[in-house]
């Protein structure tokens, strides 16, 4: 075995070692980096798209008139001011010459909204936001002229915040001969209503209760 053969053998060993100890692992790591690049690029595209969408929505939000947003806040406030609502009902009834014989507020009932948006946060342990809609019922008994009562109902339907009529009873419900006789001589009708108003608190579940709307004063 001469010198040349030894050199050739040495070169062969070096080449094989280089392929297996450097080139091949480097190619494997390049493949892993390329996978990472794909993932990061995909994530970047998604974040970019999300940011664009968010900026578009913000632009739309900015395009709304402040008065409209204020009215929306009044229509669906964060809390229900029972006293103010009752005052408004009293004003509306009095405006139409109706006599209130009963006006009482019921318990506030709440329900979880089904319109909550699922937001996946990139980092941090944010508490998922769950919107909460609450409603309060008001029992109202008024007496007066039928046309005046209808005018009051029209105003209730046009109110800045919802005063939904969920129950209305006029006269006897189950018609019996006795009831017909007793109602026949009545000149002024009595109307039993149950009105419902709503509140929507987006921030409540996050412990950041804030008033975005308010019940307007009666007058």
């Amino acid at each position: 075995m001469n010198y040349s053969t030894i050199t050739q053998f040495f070169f062969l060993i070096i080449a094989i070692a280089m392929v297996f100890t450097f080139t091949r692992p480097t190619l494997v790591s390049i493949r892993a980096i390329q996978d990472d690049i794909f993932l990061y690029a995909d994530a970047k595209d998604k974040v970019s798209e999300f940011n664009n969408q968010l900026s578009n929505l913000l632009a739309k939000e900015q395009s709304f008139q402040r008065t409209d947003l204020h009215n929306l806040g009044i229509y669906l406030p964060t809390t229900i001011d029972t006293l103010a609502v009752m005052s408004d009902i009293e004003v509306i009834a009095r405006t139409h010459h109706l006599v209130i014989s009963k006006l009482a507020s019921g318990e506030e009932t709440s329900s979880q909204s089904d319109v909550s948006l699922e937001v996946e946060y990139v980092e941090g342990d944010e508490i998922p936001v769950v919107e909460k809609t609450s409603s309060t019922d008001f029992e109202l008994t008024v007496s007066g002229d039928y046309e005046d009562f209808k005018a009051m109902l029209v105003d209730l339907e046009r109110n800045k915040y919802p005063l939904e009529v969920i129950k209305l009873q006029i006269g006897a419900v189950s018609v019996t001969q006795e009831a017909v006789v007793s109602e026949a001589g009545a000149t002024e009708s009595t109307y039993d209503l149950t009105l419902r108003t709503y509140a929507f608190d987006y921030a409540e579940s996050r412990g950041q209760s804030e008033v975005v709307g308010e019940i307007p004063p009666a007058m």
Partner: protein
Amino acid sequence: MDSSQSSSFIPKTPMSGTLNKRRVRKIYIFTYLIYIFFISSLLAAGGTWFYKVSTQNKLAAVQSELNEERKKFNQADLEKVTELDSLIIEANKILTGQVSVVQILEAVERVTLVAVDMRGFLFEKDINTKLVLELSAEASDFNTTLFQRQVLSGDAVLGGATVTGVTYANTAASEDSKAKSSVLFTVEKDILPGTILPQVQTVTLPPTVSSGPEEQTTSSAAATESVQPLVNDNVELLTP
């Protein structure tokens, strides 16, 4: 001739001894293959190293771009938009789920025959958010009741109502008064929320009141004003 040549002081060598033999070069394919393999492995190692550096730089660039995009993201903006969106959707749900009692009363007025007396009216939203309308009425005879049912079925609001609980009563004739018969019946109808929405009357304000033509809802009470157009527009804009 030979003497002149031998007299030269330059030593002469025989011609035969000065002729070079042509060298035969041996080609070893294995040697060349080894050299090619060695050089190729060197080039491959260098190439992969440069390519790795390039991909690492590319990864760093993409990571940097991602961080830039993440920095642009504002949590407060997202909350602001989602809050408004949820508020609009919820408001729209409440608004479109309402039923106009005024329109129902007007429909009852419209369809009630002169010979029929409406004695009772009950409108109630049950726990399943279904609305039940129950009207108690009195007619003088069965023909009137039948005609009333026919009129009811043709009305846009009260169409589909059923006549139930029919009771025929006849007061006994006395010496002073004649015998009086009456048919008592109940009209029942289930109303789906949102099918009879309150009508919002709109007017265009004169230029003296507003800078331009602006629609505003009419209201007789101080606390009343509708926001229906706002809510509907916003839902169209914000809901994907």
